[in-house]
């Protein structure tokens, strides 16, 4: 009997933690439909007013475009350089392997503020203006360690025997890459791209150092809007972001599972 009460306390505690984690997020979604000027509790009515206003806000739409372009380019670049590196770590033995792996992963541990200052100082020394390119290379450095971690974990599962079998059966190295390696690698590439896209799309601190008025991203824009006060429009924008960023990985997971079943 004692065991049961102990376990139910643990369960209750866990439920409370879930409430703590999700209560603020749920509040954002609920309040985004509040038609009042100062969108707060209690709810008085239900309207899409703030979404309509959002859709007409040209600066936010512009920021969305910037964020999408930046996130897509970041994910392409970082996967292109990250996948080969991950392959080197998983497939080969070479001197200094562990040290190099740690070196490439350390940016996770370096505060973004320091990364922001460092890259900006470097650009200033080179006498280059802040530009979109600065944001792009900054985001590549920022996301590279995460891509390496995620992709390495997936690559470990790909056995070399498949490639060896194909080579033995007379395939040339190009065919082996196209027919064997690439399809097996596809989930890792997808995971890496998705992860880096989300981190890039979401980043605020370092981006605040690097962004100019012309190439603001959505989080930077929200940060600027918050200086005045929290408006229901921000809650509406938040809801759109939540739906976008949560549905993307779920959708990708669903698609890759469907692919796995089909093949």
């Amino acid at each position, binding site marked *: 009997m004692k*065991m049961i009460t102990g*376990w139910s306390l*643990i369960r209750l505690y866990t439920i409370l*933690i*879930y409430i*703590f*984690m999700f*209560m*603020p*997020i749920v*509040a*954002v979604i609920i309040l985004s439909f509040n038609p009042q000027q100062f969108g*707060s*509790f*209690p709810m008085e009515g239900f309207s899409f007013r703030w979404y309509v206003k959002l859709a007409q806000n040209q600066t936010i739409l512009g920021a969305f475009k910037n964020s999408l372009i930046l996130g897509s380019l970041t994910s392409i670049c970082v996967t*292109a*350089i990250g996948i*080969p*590196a991950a392959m*080197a770590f998983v*497939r*080969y033995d*070479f001197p200094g392997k562990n040290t*190099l792996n*740690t*070196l*490439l*992963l350390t*940016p*996770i541990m*370096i*505060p*973004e*503020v*320091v990364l*922001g*200052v*460092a890259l*900006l*100082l*470097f650009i*200033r*020394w080179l006498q280059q203006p802040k530009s979109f390119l600065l944001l792009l290379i*900054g985001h*590549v*450095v920022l996301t*590279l360690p*995460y891509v390496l*971690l995620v992709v390495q974990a997936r690559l470990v599962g790909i056995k070399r025997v498949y490639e060896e079998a194909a080579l033995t059966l007379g395939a040339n190295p190009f065919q082996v890459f196209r027919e064997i390696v690439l399809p097996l690698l596809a989930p890792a590439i997808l995971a890496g791209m998705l992860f880096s896209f989300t981190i890039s799309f979401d980043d*605020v601190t370092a981006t605040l*150092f690097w962004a100019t008025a012309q190439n603001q991203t959505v*989080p930077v824009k*929200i*940060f600027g809007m918050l200086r005045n006060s*929290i408006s229901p429009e921000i809650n509406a924008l*938040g809801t759109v972001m*939540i739906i976008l*960023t*949560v549905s993307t*990985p779920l959708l990708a997971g669903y698609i890759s599972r469907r692919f796995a079943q089909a093949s």
Partner: protein
Amino acid sequence: MKAKSWKPWALLAPSLTSVLLLLVIPVCFVIVYSFWLRAPTGADIPAFQFGNYAKFFEDFFYSSILLRTFRVCFETVALCLVMGYIPAYFFFRTESKHKSIMLLLIMLPFWISFIIRTLSWINILGDTGLFNFLLMKFGIIIDPLAMLYNEGSVLMGLIQFLLPFMILNIYVSLDGIDRSLLEAARSLGCTEWQAFKEVTLPLSLPGVSAGCLLVFVLTAGTYLPPMILGGPGNELIANLIFKRVIGTLDWPFGSAISVILLSLLMVIIFTYNRYLGINQIFKSFNKG
């Protein structure tokens, strides 16, 4: 395989070059700049002097921000540990069919924009937020309580951001425990609580320490929660760096503060790595 020893290096070259050029060299620049002087005109003068460091440690205004940062780090770690261990243990012991969905839910906030998650607390803690609304509705208070823009609200934002890291680190460690050890302890006459205390808890400590380090390091560099949820007295070291560099364009001093922050973190990380090994931390990311 010897003949192909250049191959891994060719594969690594793009990543290594980027990190070297865009991270290692820029950080070296920060270190060099931290010794420079700033002219009254605002120009940076190359020099080698410790004035920026002296200024930081002599002026209590600056050093108190560093002390506050450490205090907030310890508070966040302690709260995340208290709030995170039991859910991690729950995931370890539950036999529910929905375990994978519950784990996915705990990781879901990773996918939600950090700035949205942070500002969402304004809707809860603000003067017209959920808590004040409920307290006033039930007549417990008449005027709204000031719950926002203090250290407590900053901690709320930090915990909501960092708790999943703590839970995952502890869970990964718990999940690696050989369950037959628990059965052995039970069959040898241990009570449930003794089995936990003697077997589960000690074996979960690597995850606990990895989670604590990660939460500490991420808190130390935090910029957004104090900006959005804190008041004028809740600035942390990252806010000071941003203000010096972007606000007053004082590059040498801003660089010196960055070096101080970075070196303190490096000391902590290297000490940790020396005694406990850093790889445990990276393990939890793969679960995520």
